[in-house]
């Protein structure tokens, strides 16, 4: 049974904050350490409400990322759809994990998606950068996940989003 959808604004607001955090200027040296906020929020909502936030929502979130970043349309839509698919197929197991185990999953997932994004960017000629230092972003994402998880769960419970 699928409960009636409600409080969509909580989800949208959490995404808006994630987008803001994703584009707030960082100093050059800290660029690589920026957690992938949009991916994390997306993973959370897919895990918490798999019947509401799925591949389609992930695709939309990806398109908005593309527009915001000014990158080629479809790059992030492509990789976010894959992210949502993997999360959907794992969510029942990952929900039972302890928070550091979840962090490990996040590390793998975000790292995978970032690598895929990088590959597509290289193929389409969006970047010619060498080196895999951007994967530090996956590390910091895994690091902030436990706190973000608690925060979003608190938010979801207090506004009874289901």
């Amino acid at each position, binding site marked *: 049974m699928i409960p009636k959808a409600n409080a969509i604004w909580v989800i949208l607001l959490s995404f808006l904050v994630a987008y*803001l955090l994703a584009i707030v200027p960082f100093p*050059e040296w800290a660029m690589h350490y920026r957690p992938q906020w949009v991916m994390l929020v997306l993973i959370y909502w897919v895990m918490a409400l798999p019947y509401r936030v799925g*591949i389609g929502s992930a695709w939309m979130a990806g398109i908005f990322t593309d527009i915001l970043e000014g990158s080629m349309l479809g*790059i992030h839509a492509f990789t976010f759809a894959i992210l949502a698919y993997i999360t959907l197929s794992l969510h029942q197991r990952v929900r039972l994990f302890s928070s550091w185990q979840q962090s490990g999953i996040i590390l793998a997932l975000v790292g995978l998606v970032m690598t895929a994004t990088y590959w597509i960017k290289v193929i389409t000629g969006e970047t010619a950068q060498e080196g895999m230092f951007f994967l530090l972003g996956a590390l910091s994402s895994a690091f902030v996940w436990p706190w973000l998880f608690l925060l979003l769960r608190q938010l979801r419970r207090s506004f009874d989003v289901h």
Partner: protein
Amino acid sequence: MSLEYRLVAFLALAMSLLYMDSRYEYLDRVRYSVAYLTTPVYWLADIPTRMSFWIDDVFVSQRDLLEENTQLRQQLLFAQRELQLLAGLASENSRLRELQEASQAVQGRVMTAEIINVSNDPGSRRVLINRGAQNGVIEGQAMLDAHGLMGQVEEVLPFTSWVLLITDSRHGTPVQVNRNGERTIARGSRGDAPGLELEFVPDTADISVGDLLVSSGLGQRFPKDYPVAEVTSIIHDPGQPFAQIRARPLAQMDRTRHVMLVIPDDEAIVGPPMIFDATTDVVENVPVTNLPEDFSPAAAESQPAPAPNPAAGSAAQETAGGIQ
């Protein structure tokens, strides 16, 4: 199983978007209109920076202000004196060019802008500025800061524009060595440290550490003779066909907020002093005779006027050090 179908459907949709965006131009219009949605997000994200600037402005002691004011006055004085020399040089230059019947390629009008965001993609070096199509920004315009060339406008949105920096791994800047006119291309570094690499320079080329690279104007994108970078290291590897030369951009890529966009203008005259119009944010060329009183260079009174030759710049700086 429907999950896999949906995944394939959305991936196909994303791929077709990618294909359309890379092959055709009509998605640019979509992007342009959607920017009305994203501009507020960037405006929101810029609030912390504006707040910190505001706090700096409000909580500043009078002593600091006075000190800064004195410093700026002095800088203006010396800048004005150099401008004076420049006016002479410019007229001389244009006379010489007339003799040679060469076209005058130096552009004079600029528009000020502020950097409001930096691309969060570590693979590209781009910045967002607060001027867009509404302010008359066009694609390909060159961007400068007070020290040198920064980049070119890559994508124009209604109120903002993306600027590709010269340190981006996809960007190549046609440059020449100021000392001897040796031409080459400075490409954005592909490694992790931001910088420039000179491409395809033979081992025998006369380039040494510390050389100033200026834009050569080839490629017709960047105005000629703007300072771009300084050569920092040269490695001659016998196993490599070309020398590996690195350069450091002179523009303050990750520190500056205030930048200038060069307005392409074919009729611009070479070199007369410019004046800033605060209402339109455009710096205009003005004939030397029309300069307002405040701009009359007082520096000339306090200093002996040296002969207008290229060495005058360094001489002026030495005198400046002496006075301070």
